[in-house]
């Protein structure tokens, strides 16, 4: 233990002599470790946010989207989204609600984009349109005022609920409830406001939204008769699979799809969506790991190179140490310690760099970052191994030097 400390001290002393050289050598490791830890911190928290927001939508959700995702995989139209597909109708939602025994409630959803204005101020917002069931099916929380009710939906009433960003932009500190705003030029009455939701991982402001009854969106804003999604809430978690099958049967009947023909809709539950997400995460992790691997390899080669130079430069020192009684093992350990110290120091600097980057990112952009222990432990382990692996050959060369030749070396 005492000798190890002694060796670490010697290592720091000799790295200190060539500060710039040591730093440049470490740069490969610093960048490698820094990039990986920083990307992980963004990635991990991105994943957390997405998972959380999927779970936040509500529990026991079954998501019915238009088009057959299995059949149309690779079709750009299907990938871009469900916005332009017209297979799902209001009647489908009503049929599920009416016929299903395992579903508690159903909410058809339309997602659109419109310009909202009040007095002389206006703002482009996302429009989420649904029915009064939405409050029960997914967590749609009202801060002030009320949600739209069934008669609003039945009458295509011109009522709107505003997200907090919209409130701030159009009304400042005024109370928006009861005021008349214009959505795409048409008059709407504000009946409520949403609780603030914050920004997503990718900087999308979730409060820059308004919500109107789905019928109003169809008839008065966008002029179509389909819906983008249908969300169904199962009565219990155990009933999810059975409920999915039931919905599939109801919709097949509704769409007059004969047995053997492909469905023109897709029924998924939250678990399946999370599974898809975890595939994406795996791909992300593999990509990051390869980048890390390559940069650590490059960094390691840099360390090996500099250690070989160092052994050459210090041949005489090695000769002196051997003359006064250093064994091959002592020299080996000395140089090995030096390369490990070099790579661990690089690793630590890289982590500091990464933490600084992710703190800056979360402070000055809307990206959320989480620095977790796992990538830091991994980074340190790997940089130690890089130091060990790439340091062993130069250290062995140093250890094998003949003391007589080494003492004569100029």
């Amino acid at each position: 233990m005492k000798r190890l400390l002694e060796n670490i001290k010697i290592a720091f002393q000799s790295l200190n002599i060539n500060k710039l050289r040591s730093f440049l050598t470490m740069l490969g490791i610093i960048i490698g470790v820094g990039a990986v830890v920083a990307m992980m911190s963004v990635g991990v928290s991105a994943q957390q946010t997405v998972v959380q927001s999927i779970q936040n939508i509500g529990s026991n959700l079954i998501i019915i989207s238009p088009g057959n995702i299995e059949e149309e995989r690779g079709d750009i139209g299907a990938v871009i989204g469900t916005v332009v597909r017209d297979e799902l109708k209001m009647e489908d939602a009503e049929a599920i609600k009416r016929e299903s025994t395992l579903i508690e409630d159903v909410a058809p959803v339309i997602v659109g984009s419109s310009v909202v204005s009040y007095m002389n101020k206006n703002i482009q917002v996302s429009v989420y349109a649904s029915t009064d069931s939405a409050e029960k099916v997914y967590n749609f929380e009202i801060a002030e005022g009320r949600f739209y009710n069934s008669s609003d939906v039945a009458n295509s009433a011109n009522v709107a609920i505003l997200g907090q960003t919209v409130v701030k932009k159009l009304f400042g500190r005024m109370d928006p409830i009861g005021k008349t705003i214009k959505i795409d030029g048409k008059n709407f009455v504000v009946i409520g406001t949403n609780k603030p939701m914050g920004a997503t991982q990718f900087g999308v402001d979730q409060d820059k939204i308004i919500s109107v009854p789905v019928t109003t969106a169809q008839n008065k804003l966008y002029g179509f008769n389909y819906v983008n999604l249908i969300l169904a809430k199962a009565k219990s978690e155990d009933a999810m699979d059975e409920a999915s099958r039931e919905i599939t049967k109801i919709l097949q009947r509704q769409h007059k799809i004969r047995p053997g023909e492909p469905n023109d809709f897709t029924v998924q539950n939250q678990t399946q969506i999370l599974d898809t997400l975890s595939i994406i995460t795996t791909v992300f992790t593999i990509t990051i790991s390869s980048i890390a691997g390559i940069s650590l390899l490059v960094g390691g080669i840099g360390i090996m190179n500099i250690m070989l130079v160092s052994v050459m430069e210090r041949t005489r020192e090695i000769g002196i140490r051997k003359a006064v009684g250093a064994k091959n093992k002592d020299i080996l350990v000395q140089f090995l310690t030096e390369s490990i110290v070099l790579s661990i120091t690089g690793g630590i600097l890289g982590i500091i760099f990464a933490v600084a980057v992710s703190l800056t990112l979360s402070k000055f952009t809307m990206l959320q970052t989480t620095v977790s222990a796992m990538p830091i432990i991994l980074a340190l382990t790997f940089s130690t191994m890089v130091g060990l692996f790439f340091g062993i050959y130069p250290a062995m060369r140093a250890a094998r030097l003949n003391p007589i030749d080494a003492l004569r070396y100029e």
Partner: protein
Amino acid sequence: MDMNKKEEYNSAIINTIEITKTYRLGEREEVRALKGVSLKIQRGEFVAIMGPSGSGKSTLMNILGCLDTPTSGKYFLENIDVSKLNDNQLAEIRNKKVGFVFQTFNLLPRLDAFHNVGLPLIYSREGSKNDKKERILSSLEAVGLKGLEKHRPNELSGGERQRVAIARALVNDPSIILADEPTGNLDSRSGEEIMAIFQKLNRQGRTILLVTHELEIAKHTQKIIYLRDGIIHNFEKIKNPIDAEQKLKEMPRLENKMIENKIKQAKSV
């Protein structure tokens, strides 16, 4: 070294029997650097080895210092047959029984005098930290460098550097001190000072073996071994070795000379 220990073994510290060393140069050519050297050095002796370059004195020194092993023959260092030891065992012998002093000092430039002297102690496992510190300080004191512990080699004169090297050779209380041209890089006054230290250490009971090609330096010892073409050519006992202390007193101090020159210059103006 105490007197009891000295009487305990009265045999030779160094005893070589017909050692040879042959170097191979390429496929066919062989260089026979040593062709059968037998010599004995008793405890407490101060011996010089002289010879022209190519006589094999460096090779002999390397073997006696356990940096190298003989091709044939036997070498006993304090009755241990070191001609058969492996690298690790030789390193341990070098650490415990041999103290080297080189022509070029061979100090580590980044370490101060204290740590340079302490270098052999890093590689010997016994001894507490305080004990080691004590030994380093007493070694430095023995060569007259008390108070210069914190100085690095580049802050010391040539003579002082060589004294640090001698202190390093002493720190593990070795059986023998091997000095290879220790005055070769020094001016005559510093060289004489080094010889004075060796003589003092010898009077205290140290066994010292010195390699030189300067007869004047060799005459400070008790016995000269002449080496030529890889064999011992001749022995010579020095009846009245030069006393370095005495000679130093007779030598004009460098500073005095400089003052004299200045006075001369001033007069001539």
